[in-house]
């Protein structure tokens, strides 16, 4: 570190008003911070970087020993394989991605459409046993999803929802609605009810008041909540594995996992599929990053 002894134990007149910053001063502190952050970044990002690297290596470079970090030939073949079947036409993986988009998108939309008005109602109205109801809603999230996978499987078999997109959409919605209600209730509580009162005195009905004044103020919250719900549905693995089997219904997570387990594993294809799978979530999270932080820190500051 670049902190000299003189600097570190300086007893001279302290010109700086923040002694701690002075003692552990400017450059030295900066260097330490960068070093620690670099270590952290390497640990966190190595798997991601390795995945990206593997997805653009040729197969013999993937298995090369010692591993090739930089001097390999870049190829886009794996990405082509993700979308195009070997004989031409669409690959089964691309069908899975499409299924993921449909299932995650529809279930998130459903959870939002059901959850936001519910959150509004719980926030605004005197409901009988409100706290108990909210606790009951939350209690559906107390157990890990795996616990209910067998009962759900048996029920779905009875009603014919096994191996259907609708089945997945319903179960994801069911898991996302409680989350949406709880998170959105926090956002609705932050919007003063007086806006709606004022709008009602100005000649709007309660629903119009909600729609025209409260809802626009809730949009950032809805965006944050929807992204969390979307990530859950998009990444969900257990239900997708148990409840679907055919290629034209299966979502991407079990489909990618299914690539592993033959006599040989095409790691390049697995890596490329994983990159394609991770991208949408990254992009979404980046777009609403401000609101995500708002969602996490909500209620920390009183209005």
């Amino acid at each position, binding site marked *: 570190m670049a902190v000299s002894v003189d600097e570190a134990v300086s007893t001279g007149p302290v010109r700086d008003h923040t002694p701690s910053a002075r003692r552990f001063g400017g450059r030295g502190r900066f260097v330490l911070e960068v070093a620690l952050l670099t270590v952290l970044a390497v640990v966190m990002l190595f798997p991601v970087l390795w995945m990206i690297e593997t997805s653009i290596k040729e197969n013999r470079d993937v298995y090369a020993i010692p591993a090739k970090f930089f001097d390999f030939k870049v190829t886009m073949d794996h990405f082509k394989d993700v979308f195009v079947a070997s004989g031409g036409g669409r690959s089964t993986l691309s069908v899975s991605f499409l299924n993921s988009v449909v299932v995650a998108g529809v279930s998130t939309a459903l959870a939002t459409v059901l959850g936001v008005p519910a959150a509004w109602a719980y926030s605004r109205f005197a*409901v*009988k046993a409100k706290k108990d109801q909210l606790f009951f809603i939350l209690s559906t999230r107390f157990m890990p999803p795996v616990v209910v996978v067998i009962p759900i499987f048996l029920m779905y078999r009875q009603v014919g929802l096994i191996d259907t997109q609708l089945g997945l959409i319903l179960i994801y919605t069911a898991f996302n609605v409680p989350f949406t209600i709880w998170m959105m209730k926090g956002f609705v509580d932050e919007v003063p009810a*007086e806006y709606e*009162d*004022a709008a*009602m*005195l*100005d*000649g*709007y009905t309660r629903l119009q008041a909600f729609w025209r004044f409260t809802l626009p103020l809730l949009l950032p919250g809805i965006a944050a909540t929807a992204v969390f719900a979307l990530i859950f549905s998009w990444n969900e693995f257990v239900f997708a594995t148990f409840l679907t089997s055919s290629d034209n219904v299966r979502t991407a997570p079990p489909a990618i996992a299914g690539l592993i387990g033959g006599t040989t594993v095409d790691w390049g294809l697995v890596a490329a599929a994983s990159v394609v799978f991770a991208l949408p979530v990254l992009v979404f999270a980046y777009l609403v990053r401000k609101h995500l932080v708002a969602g996490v820190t909500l209620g920390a500051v009183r209005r």
Partner: protein
Amino acid sequence: MAGIEVTALHKRYPDGTVAVDHVDLSIGDGELFVMLGPSGCGKTTTLRAIAGLERQTTGDIRIGNTLVNDLPPAERDIAMVFQFYALYPHLRTRDNLAFPLRAEGLPKAEVRERVDEAARLMRLGPLLDRRPRRLSGGEQQRVALARALVRRPRAFLMDEPLTNLDAELRADMRTEIKHLQGELGTTMVYVTHDQVEAMSLGHRIAILNKGRVEQIGTPLEVYDRPASLFCAAFIGSPPMNLIEVEVADGKLRSQSGLVLTPPPGLPRDRCLVAGVRPEALEVTEPGAERSVPARVVSAEWLGDEIIYVVDHGGQRDVRVRMPSTVRFAADAPVGLRHSGGPPPVYDVSTEELVA
């Protein structure tokens, strides 16, 4: 413009809380009527029921001669100002003012004329093109008032509109609201928990407690003859001294021997409490005529006056308001005497005024 009649209002929420137990109000046309009470007394719920924002469980509300029980807020022709100003955050002042008028579907020229008029009345000229977030608290409240004015409603409802302002602004706005109401002559129902606001603004004051009306009267009536022990303790700063008394030889005498002027029609054989205002007592030199021996516990020097807390051997220490020229040291032996007219007297068990 119109008077407001509230008859046997009762509001019970689904979770079982009774916000308003039984309220009858008769508010005259053009009156500035204040509802005063501690939080949770039902004053805001009553106001919201008049506005139509809450549906009462039972009871009738009439505005003018119209029964408005089943009318939505917009059709009651009233305007409301909230504690939190509720200006639409995405609209400039000008559009905030115009909003209720556009919702009514008035022609553009008239909207502009009325907005300008309200802006002139509330001196909003320089603020017309700003959004609420760029206005100070006092400015926001003036805009909120203007937004109520612009409708030319039959009545104004004010829900603690000054609570969020600092003390100095609050005093200014109080004057402004009173002046405005006098000028327009529009009925105004004003809810507050601040007795100073109630006393200085109201033509009449209703004191509410636990969902019931304890007393309705002019500020002076409410101050001079509180109708119940609750009102006696609520109005005035410092509040009335409640002194336990007994009737003997046609005189009112406290345990310490302090003699009060008796009001006519005193009942016998009951436990009585007299409500004595701090300014109706006097701290004197020890042994002065008609005084009882007492001791100064503490003194609050307020500049123009001194509030003495005095122990006179009664159950509670009493507070006495004296001019700042009369000075006694803490712990000094003094005399205490009653110097006012007959005080209101209450029955301890019913807590009501008996004489």
